[in-house]
Each structure stands twice: as structure tokens, then as C-alpha cells.
């Protein structure tokens, strides 16, 4: 037995003639409504709103640009000073981080490289190759910075040394040796070191 709601949902299918008549009526509605459009004043209102919005937008942009100029004007000396300080600090600290790049490092590296490779690599490339592996400071940075003539020594060290610096070491390979570079002071005190891959 069908419920009232079921019977209510059933709509009789139109015949072909009824469909045709419906199409005619819908075409009539379409033709009659074709001329309908939004009120004419709406366009004027919207164009006025567009101009107002644009003016506000332009004003905001101008104000933002002006703010930028003011900031640049007032803060330029400060920024320049900060940049100078930063540059000075870099000039002091950079040699500390890579002390031998321009002097001993290429020479040390050349011992490990074939003559062909050496010939192909430029000085900046050498510097880059060495720059990739960081040094581990063994003394304070101040002490390293104060060292007048540090030297870079290259040596074979036991792989077990890696463990002392927190690097996991395979016990089976702990007895092997590996290449390391050590930065030493003029009196032979180790300042920093790094392990080479």
C-alpha cells in the first residue's frame, strides 16, 4: 500500500503534445522576459561605487608608499650602521670559521686530488669544497680569533675519534683511520678540527 507521501510524489508524465505546448509557453515567457533588465540607475550607482573604491584603493596605496619612503628616510642611517657592524663582524669571524681556505687548504686538498681534477677546479671551487664540512671548535672562538698565524694540518686519525664528537661509529670500523684537518696555533695547540669524508 502506498503512503500518501508516495502518491503525492507521483506526477503524471506529460504527453508529447503537452510537452510541445509547454515548450511554446516557456518560449513565450522567455521572449516576454527578454527585455527585462536591472534598473538603469543601478549602473550609475555601481560605477560611482567603483570610482569610490578605486579612489580609496589608490589613496591606500599612496599612503603605504609614503610610509615606506618615511621609514626608509628615517631608518636608512640605522640600517647602514647595522650593515657596517654586520660586515665588520663577518670580516672578523669569517677567517675564524674557514681560516686556511685561501692559503693552506688548496695545497692540502691537492694532495688528495688527482692532478687532472686539480687542474679543472678553480680556487673558488676549492673553497666551496672545503666550506661544505664545518670545523669543530676545540678552543673558544675568542681564542681562535686572537691566534695570529694558525696553521692547518692534515692527518690520519683513528675513526674511533668520531665517537668523542658524538658521531656514531661502527665498532667493526673503529680501528680504521680517516682523514682529518686540524687547525693549530703557532705553539702547536689544537684550535679546531674537522673530519674529511
Amino acid at each position, binding site marked *: 500500500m502506498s503512503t500518501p507521501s508516495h502518491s503525492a510524489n507521483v506526477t503524471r508524465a506529460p504527453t508529447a503534445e503537452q510537452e510541445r505546448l509547454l515548450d511554446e509557453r516557456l518560449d513565450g*515567457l522567455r521572449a516576454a522576459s527578454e527585455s527585462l533588465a*536591472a534598473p538603469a540607475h543601478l549602473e550609475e*550607482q555601481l560605477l560611482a561605487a567603483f570610482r569610490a573604491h578605486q579612489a580609496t584603493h589608490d589613496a591606500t596605496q599612496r599612503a603605504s608608499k609614503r610610509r615606506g619612503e618615511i621609514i626608509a628616510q628615517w631608518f636608512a642611517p640605522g640600517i647602514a650602521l647595522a650593515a657596517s657592524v654586520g660586515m665588520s663582524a663577518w670580516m672578523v669571524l669569517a677567517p675564524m670559521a674557514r681560516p686556511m681556505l685561501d692559503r693552506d687548504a688548496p695545497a692540502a686538498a691537492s694532495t688528495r686530488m688527482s692532478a687532472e681534477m686539480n687542474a679543472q677546479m678553480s680556487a673558488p671551487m676549492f673553497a666551496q669544497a672545503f666550506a661544505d664540512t664545518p670545523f669543530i671548535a676545540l678552543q673558544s672562538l675568542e681564542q681562535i680569533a686572537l691566534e695570529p698565524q694558525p696553521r692547518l694540518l692534515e692527518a690520519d686519525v683513528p675513526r674511533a675519534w668520531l665517537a668523542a664528537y658524538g658521531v656514531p661509529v661502527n665498532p667493526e670500523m673503529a680501528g680504521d683511520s680517516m682523514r682529518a684537518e686540524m687547525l693549530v696555533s703557532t705553539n702547536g695547540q689544537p684550535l679546531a678540527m674537522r673530519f674529511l669524508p
Partner: protein
Amino acid sequence: MPLTDPTEDLALLTEMRRGNGAAFATLFRRHQAPLYRFALLRCGSPDTAADIVQEIFMGLLANSLKFDPARGVLQGFLFGVARNLVLKREEARYRFVSPRKPHAESSIATGDTADPDDWLIDPAPQPPQRLLDQEQAETVRRALQRLAPHYRDVVILYEMHDLTYVEIAQICDIDIGTVRSRLSRARAKLVELLLPDFPEAATPATHQTPMIQQEARP
């Protein structure tokens, strides 16, 4: 099939966003009439339809409408916005309609079914208001107005704006099968509502037959 060239629409929109007032005016002239007609036939009120058109273009100029060209054409997007604005305005009207409340239209789906998607007749119709001068067109419009809103959407977009099932599906956020079935049921309902107005030759069918599937646009 879009009524306007989507590429030109996109170029105008870009120009408008650069601050070109003429591009905005052109966009308005291209789209206002179809949007107004959709809103008018959908909600039956010229004032509301004008408000909706205004709101759409205000959203466009303030860049608060996020149109993505990758997801469809501008025209379809604007119809979608118009539909959402109509739905927003209708919310209050339908809030107080009980889905199980019996309705005068007892022989058809009205408000007596729990699922609002099954309603064929608007359970909270707008007061009748004459909008068209031609008597016959006005009768069809009023019959259309009696359909439930989700049925009205597909009829207006398909019959009055030549949109395809795919475009209507995107605008109404439903699948193509639902568009097809709603259109078929809505047309059958319209025939029923307009039957007294049809010539005698078009007598009602005396037997129950499956609904005729319309020749579809893709």
C-alpha cells in the same frame, strides 16, 4: 553554452582589477540582464532581483568574490553567486515551514514529505505580483513560481538561459543526473499546473507512463 565570450570576460575582469572603470561597466552591461532575469524569475520580486544584481557587482568590484577561471566561466560563477544570494534571502522564509505540514495541493508533492528535495511545489510561496504584461507569459511565470526553489533553478537556467546540464550542475552544486531528473519532474509539474490553460486537445494522459526524457543539451 555561455551567453558571453569567456575569454573576453576574463580580459575585462583583469582590466577591471587594474582599476579600469570602462571594463567594469562593460562587464556589468554584459551580465546584468541575465542575472537580473534569473533572480527575478527565481524570487519573483523586482526589488530583490535588483538588490541581488547590485550585491554581485559590488562583490566583484571589491574583489570579495573569489572567481577561479580554472573552475569555470565567469557567467556560470555569477549565476552561482546569484543563486546563493537568493537562497540566503529565502532562508528566513523557509525557516518556519514545517516539512510535514499538509498543504492544499494534496495530489502532488507539497510540504507533506520529510525530505525537502522531494517538494515540487514551493511550501512558502511569495505573494503573487504581476511582472509581465503578456497574460500567457505571466501565467507561465506564476506556474514556475509555484515550483519548489530547487526545481525552479534548473528550469530557469535550462529553459531561459540555454545553459547545459554540466553548467547547471556546477552552478547548483549537484550532479548531472540530479539536474536531469529535476528538470524532467519540474516540466511534468509545470504541465500539470498549466493544464487548465492548455487547449482542449492537450487532454491529460489517462494512464501512468514513465516521464519523458527531454532531448538534452550536453
